[in-house]
């Protein structure tokens, strides 16, 4: 025992045994993991020793099909939510935007869209307006009229008009102070609109609409839908489903809309269009009515 008073001395039994044990364990596991496993368990019997080690380390070797033709890259939008984009939008000048917005009122109205097919923009989140204008400008979203107007606008004009529209307090209700409905927020709801808006449909991989578009949640770039025209919402869901609109960054709206039935699309559109207290939806369904009751009642 006396001679074992130096833990760094490899002549002593404890350090010597420990180091040998560790080295043996590492070497055996490494041979198994990097050579045997890489060579024989990767469904690639033609790999040589070096290639199998590279593969086990995680470096893709020449087994990759380098010369294979790649499908053309198609990006759904030019906008990415980087700090510089957000700064550009935040720099928008609402006063200058008011002048630009004179182009908009003919269709989108002062307070709300002049036709059920033209979306209400007053009160719309600035990031949303900016992104859609850029998509129209770059052809990522198709519309004869909007593309023509958007190409005449500079990015700064877009930011200005976005700031002006976002500042209009008399249009769409603000997302921040949006009250929660008193009831009806789970999968047990029978009303399809309430079910899809608050709980989604996990069986079909559909997240709740409300998680991004409100009420209850808001994601960057997702428009608030509360108070939007039903016919417009229905037309856009249909466009996503049919692939004629493709500017959703992660293809999420195309995936979701594709799976909705026509009745569900209709119900969701009605739900959102009628949510604000000034335009209640006329329906006998008690669950829907309950959800429309202002919070705290």
């Amino acid at each position, binding site marked *: *025992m006396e001679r*074992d*008073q*130096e*833990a*760094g001395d490899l002549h*002593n*039994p*404890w*350090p010597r045994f*420990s*180091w040998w044990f*560790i080295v043996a*364990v*590492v070497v*055996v*596991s*490494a041979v*198994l*993991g*990097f050579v045997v*496993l*890489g060579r024989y368990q*990767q469904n690639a019997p033609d790999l040589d020793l070096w290639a199998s*080690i590279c*593969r*086990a*380390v*995680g*470096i893709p070797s020449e087994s990759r099909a380098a010369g294979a033709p790649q499908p053309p890259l198609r990006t759904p939008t030019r906008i*990415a*939510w*980087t*700090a*510089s984009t957000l700064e550009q939008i935040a720099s928008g000048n609402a006063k200058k935007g008011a002048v630009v917005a004179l182009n908009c009122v003919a269709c989108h109205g002062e307070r709300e869209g002049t036709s059920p097919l033209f979306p209400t923009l007053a009160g719309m989140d600035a990031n949303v307006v900016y992104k859609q204008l850029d998509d129209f400008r770059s052809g990522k979203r198709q519309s004869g009229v909007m593309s023509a107007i958007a190409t005449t606008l500079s990015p700064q004009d877009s930011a200005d008009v976005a700031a002006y529209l976002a500042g209009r307090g008399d249009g769409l209700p603000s997302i921040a102070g949006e*009250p*929660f409905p*008193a009831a009806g*927020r*789970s*999968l*047990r709801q029978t009303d399809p609109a309430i079910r899809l808006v*608050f*709980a989604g*449909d*996990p*069986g079909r991989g559909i997240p*709740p609409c409300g*998680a991004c578009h409100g009420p*209850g*949640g*808001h994601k*960057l770039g997702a428009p608030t839908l509360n108070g939007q025209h039903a016919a417009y919402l229905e037309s856009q869901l249909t466009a996503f489903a049919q692939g004629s609109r493709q500017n959703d960054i992660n293809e999420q709206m195309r995936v979701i809309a594709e799976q909705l039935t026509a009745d569900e699309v209709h119900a969701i559109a009605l739900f959102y269009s009628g949510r604000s207290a000034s335009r209640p939806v006329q329906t006998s369904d008690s669950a829907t009515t309950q959800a429309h009751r202002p*919070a*705290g009642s």
Partner: protein
Amino acid sequence: MQNSKRLALFHYWVAFATFLLGIVLGAWQMLMRSPLPAPLDDSAAYYGSVTLHGTAMAYVVTTFFIMGFGYAVQATSLNRPLRGVGAAWVGFAICLAGTVMAVVAIVSGRASVLYTFYPPLLASAWYYGGAFLLIAGSMIWVALMIMNMTQWKRDNPGRPVPLATFAIAATAILWAWAASGVLIELAGILLPRAFGWSDLIDAALGRTLFSVTLHAIVYFWLMPAYIAFYTLVPQVAGGRLYSDTMGRLTFIMFLVFSLPVGMHHLLADPEHGSGFKFLQSALTFLVALPTLLTVFSICASLEVAGRVRGGRGLLGWIGALPWKEPMMLAVGLSLVMLGLGGFGGLINMSFAMNSMIHNTSWVTAHFHLIFGGAVVIMYFAIAYEMWPRITGKPLRSKPLARSQLWLWFWGMLITTVPWHVAGLMGQPRRVATFDYSDPLIAPMAPLVIVSVVGGLMLLASAILLIVVLFRSHFGERAAQEPMQYALAVNPPARVPASLNGFGLWNAIVLVLMVVAYGYPIGQFFFLKQHSVPAVEVTTQTSLEGRP
């Protein structure tokens, strides 16, 4: 332990108060994800609650409990006042401030990231700042544990460090190594992005760094239970520890083998080659060694005690053990849960079998059984053992404490066994609502309902725990026998330097970490393009702001 009593007591109370809060949330979450109606039926609240429950239970309760335990153990096992009490209080204050920051961020709905620190999910800087303070503050405790041991060694040259001191120092060193991963991730990746200094976030590097912490932290939580197994249980049973050397070896092996193994939490991760996953899985299997060694030594120690107490025959010693002592009862129940949970763990860490249960309820059930069950029940027993020594007031009462332990045991089994089965049926974890009318999901409904019943039993048990501790705290003062640690059958007069300090073992850990993590972490700096935009959950609707 005069100067450390208040210190330990404050740490324990923070831990158990947080524990009660966490249990209430846990029980509600069980209800929420079941087919039964739950109050506040809302998915956003569920994810916020999961974050709070996980953060509270995994970081706050454990860190505070173990720090308090460490101070108490060092003062009593070295039998001299703790050095550095002032610094210890500073550490306590930093950890508490961090906890408050993190909790406020979660409750205000700005941090529903499910407590994992996995980017690209990104919480508010307050959450990460709070977590950083909590973990960094505990490094003061680490330093004090090491300092007290080395100073004692200097004052007592040639004498073996008491096993309890040695073990708590091993715990502290293990925690320092383990925490390095998450601290680097917080300081280098999450906080800079949360402050808005960059657009992208290095998700893959973040996950890899967190895996350094992810498995070793479990052993950090486990260590107090093992320290109780070796140093308190044989004493309570009225016997002696079978072997002091085995105890030292166990804690050394936990230190060495719990660290270079975290990548078995990344078996499904595309960023890493299969070779490193296999290497770390193989090393993981070696963690079974100290556990098996412990089961053997504890059974041997208990047999010594049982026979001293008059037990005869092959198994007669079992009945002769003092099962009316909470500590004794807790060990029995803990070993049962450790056995069941351990077999589940072997499946999780197996390269191929893991893919069957990856990201299912099986995983949640597993760590609730092994941590919430086997480990936390020992926390209760430790509290019951130490409370009279710290407060100077007797435990009120042992029968109540025993029923609390039984309730916890059955509650945990009833919760986790059906939960495992639901996981095998494919139920994903971290999901707020299930459509139980779906024919694929419908068979899980009865299992989930049984789990809810277990969850409510756990809630009742936690309330009972607080009642017992509270009643004892405000009881009448009475003379208490001092804290005693078990002597070994052959108490060591001298031990080899390798078993009396950590120099050799830290060197081995360093080499293993470089082998196991050097390339997997290093590759991100020269090989792969891996930064992605963050998914911010910092602007979601607040939990409080509900009508």
